[in-house]
């Protein structure tokens, strides 16, 4: 015996199959806005977590440098190392006096012009680190080859992954410091960490002080703060030290996030416009299909359909369109998350390493929820219009 049941939902679904191209194009429009929406929300989430990861991977939360602009150290380094500001190494023991401090590691940045680097020469930078404290703070660093220095005064270097590729050095090779005529022996090559360490050449602190004649001086001290301590309080106390600049990485994060927020407002505006356009597309599609079926809707009402039945049928059509289109867009966003990442990276002035766009299940559900809500809102007018069709309208055109 044949099945003799049919539901409003089945009718709604089959109605969409009448004009397949029109339904498909509307769905694609919805899919596109769902893709934009989920990618932007994913970016919002991913960017912040990538930035936090970058900052956490520095191993310390507070950086103490010689007085000056907090961003000066980096700028000066890029200009050629001339004018780097120095602090006395003794500051380390002063910092350690504070109970909030868990660990301190001194660093000495040295940079020198290398005429053989690239086509027209370039800056070689060396970071002098303390072998007794630095590796412990950067416990996430892993070696591709070799290990840390054999002696605090050794003329040795540990090379970051990218620096090793650039210099084409392996463990056992020698690294010449131009002008100084000093050769460092490569004892370790790091694995890729996705942080700034990838491009760094690490040298024992004492050796850098000796080679560059900066005995007793450092450029920065990285501080790992005790888990339970208040970072702001420590920062205030550190300002009491003479001639130092305290940079909290939390502050740096906030500064970068506020710079990015402008870009975020822009992209969210674009998403909003995309959503509005797709909403109008949905309203237009459904409304046209309602007008095309005016007589048929009238006949359905003469069969006994109440206004709410017709409303539900048309509303369901809208929601099906949005549900399918939204799922399509969300599925697509998972597939092209990497491309979206590259696209966003090319648009922003600064991007952290790691994944910029994080798209997961909960974000997908949220997007689907938003898209369905759009469907429900867009469907109200066409559904209401259809529910108001009087049966008579369907037959009046037939004449008398």
């Amino acid at each position, binding site marked *: 015996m044949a099945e*003799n*049941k049919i539901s409003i939902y089945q009718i709604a679904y089959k109605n969409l199959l009448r004009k397949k191209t029109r339904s498909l194009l509307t769905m694609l429009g919805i899919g596109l806005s769902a893709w934009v929406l989920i990618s932007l929300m994913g970016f919002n989430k991913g960017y912040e977590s990538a930035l936090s990861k970058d900052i956490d991977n520095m191993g310390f939360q507070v950086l103490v440098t010689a007085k000056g602009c907090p961003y000066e150290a980096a700028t000066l380094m890029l200009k050629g190392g001339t004018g780097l500001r120095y602090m006395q190494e003794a500051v380390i023991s002063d910092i350690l006096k504070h109970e909030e401090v868990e660990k301190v590691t001194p660093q000495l940045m040295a940079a020198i012009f290398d005429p053989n680097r690239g086509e027209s020469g370039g800056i070689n930078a060396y970071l002098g680190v303390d072998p007794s404290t630095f590796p412990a703070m950067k416990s996430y660093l892993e070696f591709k080859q070799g290990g840390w220095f054999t002696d605090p005064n050794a003329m040795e270097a540990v090379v970051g992954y990218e620096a090793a590729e650039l210099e084409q050095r392996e463990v056992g090779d020698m690294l010449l410091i131009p002008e100084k005529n000093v050769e460092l022996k490569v004892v370790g090559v790091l694995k890729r960490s996705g942080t700034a360490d990838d491009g760094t050449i690490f040298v024992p602190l004492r050796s850098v002080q000796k080679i560059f004649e900066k005995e007793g001086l450092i450029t920065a001290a990285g501080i790992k703060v005790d888990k339970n301590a208040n970072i702001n309080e420590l920062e205030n106390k550190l300002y009491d030290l003479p001639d130092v600049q305290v940079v909290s990485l939390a502050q740096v994060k906030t500064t970068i996030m506020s710079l990015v927020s402008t870009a975020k407002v822009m992209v969210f505006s674009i998403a909003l416009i995309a959503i509005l356009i797709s909403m109008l597309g949905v309203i237009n599609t459904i409304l046209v299909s309602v007008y095309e079926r005016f007589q048929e809707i009238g006949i359905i009402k003469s*069969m006994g359909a109440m206004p709410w*039945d017709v409303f539900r049928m048309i509303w369901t059509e809208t929601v099906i369109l949005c549900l399918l289109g939204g799922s399509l867009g969300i599925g697509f966003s998972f597939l092209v998350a990497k491309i979206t990442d590259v696209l966003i990276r090319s648009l922003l002035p600064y991007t952290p390493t790691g994944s910029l766009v994080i798209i997961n299940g909960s974000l997908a559900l949220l997007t689907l929820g938003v898209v369905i809500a759009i469907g429900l809102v867009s469907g109200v007018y066409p559904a209401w219009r259809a529910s108001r069709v009087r049966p008579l309208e369907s037959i009046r055109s037939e004449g*008398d």
Partner: protein
Amino acid sequence: MTDQTMAGSATNKEFALEAKDLRKLYKRGGEEIPAVDGVSLAVKKGEFISIIGPSGSGKTTLINLLGCLDNATSGSLKVVGETIFSASKCLSESDLTRIRRRVFGYIFQKFYLVPTLTVLENVILPFAFFKKAGARTNPMEILRFLGLDRRIHHRPSELSGGEMQRVAIARSLVNKPEILLADEPTGNLDTKRSIEIGGILKSLNERDGLTVLLVTHNPALAGIAGRTIELRDGKIFA
């Protein structure tokens, strides 16, 4: 005549439809044109009536009023004993829908089948909205009766005009209406198919005792009814 006087009539139960002095006026350019002008008509249960008349005589307007698809300007109407419209009473659109789905089946000149649904799905389409107690639990019976049992999985585009109209008839019958209103059901069909549809309506009336009101231009088709009413200028002429 008032609602009370009609209710007091002893013969009420015999009638499927009782119209008294029905009038429907349309406004055209500030002038009121009567499409139906004081029609009184009593249709007994199980009767087969055809309504004929020239174009513009008010046939469709009358059948719309009798089928609760439109409101009259004045007069009164009772459907299976229930007052639908009178000087003191007028049912709401929702109440009219309830009456329509319980009492009437409609067939029109156009078939209005849903192109993406199969024959069977089109026939049971009314069940999506309403299933009357005592409705046909097995729509195959009616499909078999109408010679469509081998076409149930076909789509309307694969059917001939006569077959499409038979599907529309089947659809109007699944909820077992008491009155079948057919407005020019053969208007889109050739003579052979018209006779075929006429025969179906006749046998539904004779076999099932279904009350049938048939509007047609075709005198041959009108002839199959037990009674023929001719309309002219909105009035019953004969």
